[in-house]
């Protein structure tokens, strides 16, 4: 089966004030695959991720040009950011559940987008928590504060929260960097399991993580995509010397 291109990035340049953070990025992300971005800190991988649902809009002095297309539609020109973010969800580096109950955390998104019926909300909450593989853990304490959960549970709750608005793409910004190995494993299993329904892009520091779960990997350095290929190929026979240096641990 050949998947379609979900996201097309064409000649994207991004500046923070004077700083040229992304240089002429071109990339196609396929539907229902996991794409990993790797590279040393400050290489631009998180910046690119955040510009895919326009979270960079919040930062003062950001200028972006080039095209980013979601299903062929320019997300900076022809799409409302709130609608974009509904379709392209995001999970952050540090778990950031709202200081509300577990239930309210998951119900927040659909409520915001206009779901009013209690039974509908109940259904969405259960469905989202099941997709995040944590329904059984929390079904008896939905009314308890989300801040009482462990770090790993909080992060899975944030993933469930991202599911709740029925997105097409999920962006994850180093989602396991603050977690212990067992929680990390659970989240990796979860991502592999859900890729049949979602297009996933994950930024990671951890190259093993990229090899374990991703179909494609992009290697970033100094704001450029050095190499973008199938994960297996990129790690077994990198075409670029810099990629090779990085994955064999010679720098970064």
């Amino acid at each position: 089966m050949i998947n379609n291109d979900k996201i097309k990035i064409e000649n994207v340049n991004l500046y923070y004030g004077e700083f040229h953070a992304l240089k002429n990025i071109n990339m196609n992300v396929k539907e229902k695959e996991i794409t990993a971005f790797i590279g040393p800190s400050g290489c631009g991988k998180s910046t690119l991720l955040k510009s895919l649902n326009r979270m960079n809009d919040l930062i003062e002095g950001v200028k972006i040009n080039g095209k980013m297309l979601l299903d062929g539609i320019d997300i900076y020109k022809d799409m409302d950011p709130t609608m974009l973010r509904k379709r392209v969800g995001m999970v952050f580096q540090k778990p950031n559940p709202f200081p509300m109950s577990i239930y309210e955390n998951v119900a927040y998104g659909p409520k915001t987008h206009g779901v009013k019926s209690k039974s509908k909300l109940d259904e969405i909450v259960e469905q989202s928590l099941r997709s995040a593989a944590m329904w059984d853990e929390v079904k008896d304490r939905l009314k308890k504060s989300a801040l009482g959960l462990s770090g790993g549970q909080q992060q899975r709750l944030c993933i469930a929260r991202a599911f709740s608005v029925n997105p097409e793409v999920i962006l994850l910004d180093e989602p396991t960097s603050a977690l212990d190995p067992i929680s990390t494993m659970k989240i990796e299993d979860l991502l592999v399991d859900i890729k049949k329904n979602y297009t996933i892009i994950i930024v990671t520091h951890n190259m093993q993580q990229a090899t374990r779960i991703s179909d494609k990997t992009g290697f970033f350095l100094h704001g450029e995509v050095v190499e973008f290929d199938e994960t297996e190929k990129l790690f077994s026979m990198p075409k670029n010397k810099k990629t090779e240096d990085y994955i064999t641990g010679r720098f970064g």
Partner: protein
Amino acid sequence: MELVNAEKNLRKRKLISLVLKAGVWLCGIMTVGILIFILLFILLRGVPNINMEFLFGTYNSDTLSAFSSIVTTFEMILISLLVAVPIGVFCAIYLTEYAKRGNKAVKVIRLAVDTLAGIPSIVYGLFGMILFVNILGFRASVLSGICTVSIMILPVIISSSEEAIKSVPDMYREGSLGLGATRLGTVFRIVVPTAMPGILSGVILAIGRIVGETAALIFTSGTNVLESPTLDLFASQRTLAIHMYMLASEGLPHSKDMAFATGAILILVVFLVNLATTKLAGRLGRLGNDK
């Protein structure tokens, strides 16, 4: 599993968001508007009535001069500060430099300072009347007023000083102690001078509080007014704020004009106080950034 038509909802949501945004802007503008209204109202009618006779003349039913009240206000500020500033600053030094963490006494002292800060002026006034005017026999006098406001301004001096001393970077202390200075020497030569802008801003806030105080003074220093100024601590003599209250409650057109004039002076003082504290706070803020 699309549950609602999110696109259709978007217009409604955008509208609500716009209304909320307009609401917060409106409330921000309204707050500034109220302030400007009050200031202009008092100043426009007050300033034209300020003249030399009002400021420096003898008090009688024609001049309604504020001279004696002005002098008493200054006297009260000066002596209250002399009493309260050392106590307040020393208290802050104890809390920040000497008290051990989690000390029971510290908890009690903090509770006391918080309580003092929350007590209404009128309760201070009652207390001053009972203790200073009646029991200690100071009568209704400037002295009773000074005793009362000295207690009242303690919490503001303590909290500003504490805040300021806390913001002095530890490396200053370490530097001084490392050069062989004693703890006490470090406190007085390094910590207090560095914290001075913050301490001063507390002092200035206290001045503002004394100048504007009415309820605590009505039954302690009293509403009496002398023809010409006196520094006699045992005299009963009103301050500026009480002068304004008495003129305002008389209800005659002339006294009302003079109430406006007094109000204008009070506002001018408050304005200066604010300006000074902002400047000092700015200096302290820069100090904190050096860390």
